[in-house]
């Protein structure tokens, strides 16, 4: 890795030139090779136009969550407390893993009982690459989007796929 200033041959990954002490961190930054990569690196979560979140308080019933999901054709609902602070998320998967026979008499559960607390979030200003990584690493299909700590909306794996496929803009498969 040659220093762009003095051409000194540094060890790969060096953060500073061993000869002239120039900052080399920029040299290790990935560079976009094509349009799709550039879109992933430069476009932000905001560009996906996060769907305004339909939220519920933790005290809502599981039935309410189910009704909302069906009504709006969504698979996840962010859970916010009184101050509009995100405290969790409830997804179809949570309902699946906790589905109990409706005919069985049991105490009704609240979404607070089933939700995933402190879910992984992204910021509106994060890159698409970061959001894609979060989805892949966590196996998430939905990520709540925060802006200045406030819940802005939610993005889904579908939004991400659509974006990438559009960036490819290839026809005729």
């Amino acid at each position, binding site marked *: 890795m040659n220093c762009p200033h003095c051409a000194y041959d540094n060890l790969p990954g060096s*953060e*500073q030139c061993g000869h002239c002490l120039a900052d080399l961190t920029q040299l290790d*930054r*990935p560079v*976009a*090779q*094509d349009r*799709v*990569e550039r879109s*992933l*690196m430069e476009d932000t979560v905001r560009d996906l136009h996060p769907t305004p979140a339909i939220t519920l308080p933790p005290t809502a019933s599981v039935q309410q969550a*189910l*009704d909302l*999901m*069906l009504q709006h054709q969504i*698979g996840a609902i962010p859970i916010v407390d009184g101050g509009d602070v995100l405290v969790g998320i409830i997804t*179809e*998967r949570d*309902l*699946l*893993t906790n*589905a*109990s*026979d*409706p*005919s069985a008499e049991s105490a009704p559960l609240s979404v607070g009982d089933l939700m995933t607390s402190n879910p992984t979030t992204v*910021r509106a*200003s*994060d*890159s698409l*690459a*970061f959001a*894609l*990584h979060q*989805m*892949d690493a966590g*196996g998430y*299909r939905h990520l709540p989007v925060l802006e200045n700590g406030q819940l802005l909306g939610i993005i889904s*794996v*579908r939004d*991400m*796929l*659509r974006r*990438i*496929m559009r960036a*490819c*803009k*290839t026809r005729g*498969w």
Partner: protein
Amino acid sequence: MELARNLKVDSVSRLHPTPPWQVRPDQSVAEAVALMRQHRVGCVLVCPDEDELLGIFTERDLMRRVLAVGLPLSVPVAKCMTRNPVVVHPKDSIGAAVRRMEEGGYRHLPVVDPAGRPLGVLSVKRIVHYLAEHFPSIVYNQPPDPNVVPLEAEGA
């Protein structure tokens, strides 16, 4: 490394679809749900015998056709499955599979051989992983918190 080209060239079989977890049409929804939980998957295939695909039963079906209408989990899965699901073949391109997922809003596509025998299930998560793998340097080099950059080199 051109994604558009690779989406056309790479086939579904390259993604190693997950095994086709199956239930028979006369098994109950509760049994299907138990199988989904056990394998941590979002759908099971409904097959009268191993070589025939009749339908698919997904999380969304559970919500829409069972929980929403208050059916007991003892009903047979054939009553609330999606019949004749959109499928892909192992030799189809990944691009074609993604397009089918997008068009239908599906998160799972059964993978079947030309004779219609179920071979596996392709999930949208697997597609996301393929895309992330495709851009390793830009996706995996993301710091855990992109706005926090160490001010000094470690150990300095």
